[in-house]
């Protein structure tokens, strides 16, 4: 199976035809790049082999008690004759040249399957453009790996028969995936398109701390001690703490930033609302969609949003929120966090400490240790919720196209990678990890399962696949990484603070708007409406908070609601409602 060679020859032929009379310009269908000799679709032998049975579990591995997750088994090669597939992958600096990567060779030796990689550089949106151009040109590989297709794209291309429904193959040849789907039924639900087919071999990453990452906020506990106040529990106490920070001016020369808001790179999204709003209503952050008793709604048109804006406005007016809360860049935030004489930051919103400062894991006195997660605040009406992402973890990983003759082999190749030992080799690099010894402590505090040698310095060894491949990172697996007592990483405090300070207040899953798939026309409408709406929301937020408008004024608030209506909030919510209902089945 060597389609690449074949298409090369055909391309030259079309070139001649094209140059002769520009006739090729008129043939731009899906298959125009392929000759008639190139059969399309799975060959009958794809489902001929008997179902795969998992090999025996390897012994002597220190699984913690009650462990749920990937396990190590005895593995054999998938094919005996050399077999080759063309796979499109995004370029990744830590992977390096995919063809020369160390894990690539390692995997090839063990499976017998050779991959010819085509590499796409650039950001996610660049990759999307390039992939679409390839599809348009009929320049289709056997599979795409690590390309972040949206759920709508998977559905669209799947329904048009470009992507293969993998269900028949995974049912028969992917025992590890079946196990993952049993462990995490949500993973299967997220991988399934509205038509009931599964067009993707997914990864699942049960990242506990990620669930609170969108709104997690950090407070300087050293300053808190300095002003003699306890961790704030309500919006009023929060204000008192900020006032005390401002008064004490721990950064000196009036440079203290009690509560800092900033703007995210490349988008117009700001951070001021992400944490505080959750004391007034559930704020899932952009695009601010919530589900209220089965009805999809937008948080930014609610009364709670208005109350939150009023509160933020008072913080700004008192100088507790930085003057440039809507224009400060992430780079400026880093400067403030890494300021030479000590950080300037009292409270900041950020996924983790590194959002605002360097994280030095070697130095036990590094300043990031001073910052702790600030639990959600209780608002004046007693409302309090933690923005908790129940749906995180799903990633589309391997998408097989109808060009592929043997989807079964690629599915088995993907399933091979869910084996614990293979997964670790792909994640840390062959030989750069080891199973833990009995008695080693893990992030969870229980028996550790594995340890990784080396630090998180930029990876120069080019021996991993940087999680671009199928992965099954269960919660138990993630938390059973060995913690080196001499070199504690930030994973343990991040896990513990998330568990103790956000999990107890988490929003119920019924209220969260899930990741949905839209159909073509809806996706187009959704894109322009959500762009216009979010522009209006952040602009109005900025005006209200900085005192250029007043949310307490009924006229101004109604004008804002009027503008949302004019943009099309109603049709926008209708699209989401339909998609939501289709997701719920």
């Amino acid at each position, binding site marked *: 199976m060597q389609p690449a060679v074949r298409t090369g020859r055909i391309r030259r032929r079309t070139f001649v035809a094209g140059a002769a009379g520009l006739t090729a310009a008129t043939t731009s269908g899906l298959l125009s790049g392929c000759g008639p000799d190139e059969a399309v679709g799975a060959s009958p032998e794809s489902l001929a082999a008997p179902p795969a049975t998992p090999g025996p579990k390897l012994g002597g591995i220190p699984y913690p008690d009650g462990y749920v997750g990937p396990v190590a088994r005895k593995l054999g090669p998938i094919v005996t004759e050399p077999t080759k597939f063309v796979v499109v992958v995004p370029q990744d*600096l830590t992977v390096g040249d995919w063809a020369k990567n160390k894990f690539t060779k390692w995997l090839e030796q063990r499976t017998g399957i050779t991959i010819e990689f085509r590499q796409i*550089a650039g950001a996610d949106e660049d990759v999307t453009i390039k992939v679409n151009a*390839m599809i*348009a*040109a009929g320049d289709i590989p056997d599979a795409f790996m690590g390309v972040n297709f949206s759920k709508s794209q998977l559905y669209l291309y799947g329904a048009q028969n470009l992507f293969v429904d993998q269900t028949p193959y995974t049912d028969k040849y992917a025992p590890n995936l079946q196990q993952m789907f049993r462990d995490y039924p949500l993973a299967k639900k997220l991988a399934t398109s509205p038509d009931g087919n599964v067009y993707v071999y997914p990864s699942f990453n049960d990242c506990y701390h990620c669930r609170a990452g*969108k709104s997690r906020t950090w407070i300087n506990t050293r300053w808190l001690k300095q002003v003699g106040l306890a961790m704030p529990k309500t919006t009023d106490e929060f204000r008192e703490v900020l006032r005390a920070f401002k008064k004490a001016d721990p950064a000196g020369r009036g440079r203290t930033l009690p509560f800092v808001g900033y703007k995210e790179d490349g988008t117009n999204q700001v951070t001021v609302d992400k944490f505080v709003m959750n004391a007034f209503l559930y704020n899932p952050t952009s695009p601010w969609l919530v589900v209220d008793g089965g009805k999809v709604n937008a948080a930014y048109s609610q009364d709670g949003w208005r109350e939150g804006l009023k509160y933020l406005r008072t913080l700004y007016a008192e100088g507790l929120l930085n003057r440039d809360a809507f224009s400060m860049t992430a780079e400026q935030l880093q400067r403030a966090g890494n300021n030479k004489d000590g950080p300037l930051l009292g409270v900041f919103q950020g996924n983790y400490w590194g959002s605002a400062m360097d994280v030095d894991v070697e130095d036990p006195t590094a300043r990031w240790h001073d910052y702790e997660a600030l639990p959600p605040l209780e608002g004046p009406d007693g409302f309090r919720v933690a923005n908790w992402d129940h749906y995180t973890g799903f990633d589309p990983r391997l998408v097989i196209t109808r060009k592929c003759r043997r989807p079964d082999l690629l599915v088995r190749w993907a399933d091979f990678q869910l084996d614990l030992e293979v997964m670790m080799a792909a994640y840390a690099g062959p030989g750069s990890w080891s199973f833990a010894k009995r008695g080693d402590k893990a992030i969870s505090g229980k028996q550790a399962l594995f340890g990784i040698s080396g630090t998180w*310095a930029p990876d120069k060894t080019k021996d991993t696949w940087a999680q671009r491949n199928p992965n099954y990172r269960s919660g138990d697996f993630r938390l059973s990484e060995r913690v080196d007592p001499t070199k504690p990483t930030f994973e343990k405090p991040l896990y513990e603070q998330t568990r103790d300070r956000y999990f107890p207040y988490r929003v119920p899953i019924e209220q969260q708007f899930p990741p949905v798939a839209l159909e073509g026309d809806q996706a187009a409408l959704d894109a322009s409406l959500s762009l216009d709406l979010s522009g209006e929301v952040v602009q109005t937020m900025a005006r209200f908070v900085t005192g250029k408008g007043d949310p307490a004024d009924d006229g101004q608030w109604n004008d804002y609601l009027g503008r949302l209506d004019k943009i099309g909030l109603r049709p926008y919510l209708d699209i989401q409602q339909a998609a939501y209902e289709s997701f719920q089945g």
Partner: protein
Amino acid sequence: MTTTPAAPERESDDYLPAAVKETRADRIVLICNYTALGLFSLAVLYPLVYVLSAAFSEPRNVQSGEVWLWPVGLSLESFRSIFDYDGIVRGFGNSVVYAIGGALLATALTLLAAYPLSRRDLPGKGLILGLFLFTMMFNGGLIPNYLVVDRTGLLDTRWAMILPTAMAVWNVIITRTYFQTTIPEELAESARVDGCSDIGFFWRVVLPLSKPIIAVNLLFYAVAQWNSWFNALIYLTSEHLFPLQLVLRQILVQSNVDPSQVRDVAELLRMKELQEQLKFSLIVIATIPPLLVYPFVQKHFVKGAMVGSLQG
């Protein structure tokens, strides 16, 4: 015309016979001119010095905002880590190839197009010019361009970097204007009378007279090629063909992840360190070649060079 041989470049002021005395007003103009140029250079110099200093400082000091003019904590670390990414070294080599190859080909095509279009007596010139100008305003868009590059068999070859962008109508128009203003129509007429063919005239008279615009074309095309990454992104899928700017962009976009996208923090941290280390040193590396080339272009901006050649 005088018989003064054209000096290669005069050291001091140019046309001023020693006997003529400068007026007071002239001196004031000169002083103002020097001051204005100097001030502007200083304003431009600051970011250049900053980038250099940042590249030679400890990344940590750049991050904390301590570096504002001179390097703080002199370090070559960021340059050393560049060489850990073989993609960068190879990208540098590829970019040199694309820049030189692209510039030569594009300049040749541009001159070939610009000269006939500069001749007033060419029948159909308006139509041909219209054909050129139209493509400045309208294009087919990304997907059809990709289809063409695919159908012509250029996809994922070095030619894909050079051929689709081999000519810029903008440059053709500028070059044509230059020919129109510097090559007198009568010169071509008289050459014809003397039995010189159009191609011969172009080769023996026009080209030698047009060194400045040739140099500008070479520079502009080389620089455009050197700075471009989008075509590489769309047309190339083999890492060993990637140009430097694409690799640089990869580092920027990969380390500049959207924080609202929930990602594993370990991965975020790895990217962050990468970017801090390389951001400024990469600019330095990417800027050196165009700077080295510039004096060779500048050399041709000699006053009066034209006239000298006309006489010779």
